[in-house]
């Protein structure tokens, strides 16, 4: 599932015959390894930032991009090549120990700088006050788990995580199963249409749905939102959907369901098609109805795919920020954790609570992280 279509390797990667000589150890080799890893990133950063022309507001954008591309492709390649040649000049044994770090090092340095260090630093900031000046222990976390404003965002995020994956995976699976029974042309055309929102940004989707939920009070003109147009045409009062607590949360969730269903549908569809025809045939001969054969044959065979799709959608939903930010700004009781985090950090200038909310976001996905690592290990063991 999480690997690209590949040919199964006949032997484990871990025992590649490229294992040359014994790995050299010693401080000197490690110093060389670290130095080797740092060269490429440092040169890139210095090049990008030390030269003023890329910061010049008047600088031509096309030239900036061109420079970036020349550096990003040619320059980086030349740097890696240069490092490789430098390693050639080392004594053979040291060279063997250092060379891998000329390859893997720059990526590790970037990862350390952009993900590992910030994660640690954010955790530290979460134990400090609003301006990160002194330590306040668990105060920020106590606030998050006691003050109603944050509790509402935690509650809302929890509901998002329950509802959106259920709807997106449910509709996606239903559509995949139904479309599978139609002609191929119709199937692929309809699937493309359901899938299309995947190409739209969350901000763009919010604008799309602005024209669904649009509301105008009495005397401010005709309703231009299609929902209110339908709603009033069947004799109801026009409703300000996005201000209607607590249902407004559900209306926002619909937008994400709209975006994510295509993703689950496409992946589940290929899983449904992978169910062996003989199994279905056997079920049919045993007199199973379509409904029974779906739940007793198809669903169990695609279950692991459902789980992967489910967790993926859960992670996306858990971090949803843009939709709430654009549609309601978290007002009217629609705040969620990820949006509240940005709000605390930028609008309220409260680093401590902002960081604590980020940590909450992270800690909640740790089980999925562990699951991923386990699954990866299991896959490796099978190789």
């Amino acid at each position, binding site marked *: 599932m*999480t*690997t*690209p*279509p*590949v*040919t199964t390797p*006949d*032997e484990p*990667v871990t025992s590649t*015959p*490229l294992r040359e000589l014994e*790995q050299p150890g010693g401080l000197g080799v490690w110093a060389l390894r670290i130095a080797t890893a740092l060269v490429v990133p440092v040169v*890139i950063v210095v090049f990008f930032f030390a030269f003023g022309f*890329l910061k010049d507001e008047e600088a031509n954008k096309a030239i*900036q991009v061109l420079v*970036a*591309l020349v550096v*990003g*492709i040619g320059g*980086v*390649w030349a740097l*890696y090549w240069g490092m*490789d040649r430098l390693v050639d000049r080392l004594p053979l044994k040291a060279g063997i*120990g250092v060379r891998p770090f000329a*390859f*893997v090092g720059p990526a*590790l340095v*970037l*990862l350390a700088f*952009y993900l*590992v260090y910030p*994660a640690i*630093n*954010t955790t530290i*900031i979460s134990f400090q006050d609003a301006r990160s000046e002194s330590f306040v222990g668990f105060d920020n976390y106590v606030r998050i788990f006691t003050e109603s404003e944050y509790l509402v965002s935690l509650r809302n995020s929890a509901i998002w995580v329950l509802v959106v994956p259920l709807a997106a995976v449910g*509709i996606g699976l239903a559509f995949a199963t*139904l479309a599978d029974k139609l002609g191929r042309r119709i199937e692929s055309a309809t699937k493309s249409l359901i899938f299309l*929102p995947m*190409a739209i*940004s969350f901000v*763009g989707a919010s*604008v799309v749905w*602005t*024209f*669904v939920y649009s509301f105008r009070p009495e005397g401010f003109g005709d309703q*231009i939102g*299609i929902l209110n147009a339908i709603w009033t045409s069947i004799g109801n009062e026009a409703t300000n959907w996005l201000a209607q607590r607590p249902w407004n949360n559900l209306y926002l969730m619909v937008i994400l369901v709209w975006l994510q269903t295509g993703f689950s549908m496409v992946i589940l569809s290929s899983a449904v098609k992978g169910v062996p025809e003989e199994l279905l045939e056997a079920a049919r001969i045993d*007199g199973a109805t*379509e409904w029974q054969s779906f739940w007793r044959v198809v669903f169990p065979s695609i279950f692991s795919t459902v789980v992967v799709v489910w*967790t*993926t959608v859960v*992670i996306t939903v858990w*971090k949803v920020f843009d939709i709430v930010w654009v549609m309601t700004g978290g007002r009217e009781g629609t705040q969620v954790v*990820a949006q509240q985090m940005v709000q605390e950090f*930028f609008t309220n200038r409260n680093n401590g609570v902002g960081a604590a909310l*980020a940590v909450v976001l992270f800690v909640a*996905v740790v089980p999925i*992280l562990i699951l991923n*690592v386990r699954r*990866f290990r299991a896959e490796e063991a099978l190789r």
Partner: protein
Amino acid sequence: MTTTSEAAATTETGAPSGPRASRRGLIYLAVTVIVALWTIPSFGLLINSLRDPRSIRASGWWSAFTDVFDSAAWTLENYRVVLDQGFGNAFANTVAVSIPSVVIPITIAAFAAYAFAWMEFPGRNILFVTVVGLLVVPLQMALIPILRIYVDFDVNGTFPAVWLAHAGFGLPLAVYLLRNYMGSLPKSIVESAKIDGADHFAIFARLILPLSVPVLASFAIFQFLWVWNDYLVALVFLGNDPSVEVLTVSLATLAGRGEGALNLLPAAAFVTMVLPMVVFFSLQRFFVRGLTAGSVKG
């Protein structure tokens, strides 16, 4: 559900076409309803973007169908205004952000993936497991510290700052995908190249990289759509300055103006969507593959 079971039962006993056809009819109905629900919102927006500004404010998009053939009712004026009012510029900015943000991580990840797949070094397994773990770390964890560093060094709001941020955030997925793909290439070809005297750099550049083009393409499309549609990273590290602001930021600002900008919103939204849609439709196959593979990105 009775209909389905009935239909299945008749199928079994020799299938008279009646109930079977009605079951098929139900499937068509369900599919049509879902497709309608999924397309009408964007379709309405498209119609609205082509109407004259006053009608957009005065009535819903469906009213346009009462005078479809009235050429005065249709106009590209909104697009012209939107492009003049900064969206043309934001489009260029978004291109300027996206291309290097896709290219830089690919190069760096490819070298790392090769090392993970075909080279021996201390800590290889634990480092790669760490990369797998980093896949799900929420972006939010990185915002505050990186922003502080960027501000301290006075580089926030520059393109290189956001290129490198996107490169860093995209790396776990890139390394993960490329390593799994490269590691599954047949060992024999690498071995025979070794015997012919090729060193690691040559094997990587001449052998492994050309063979990895499909997965490179998948990642490139995935990362492109991700960067193009990103709002959070652009908002934090580029912000609202017109000289650098990207489409999502412009669109969110416009949406924030509420009724005042109502006539411009539909066209603006389509300006932001056009390129990803083209990429999506022309390269759907690659995109699906990248999506399947990258479904765990954090």
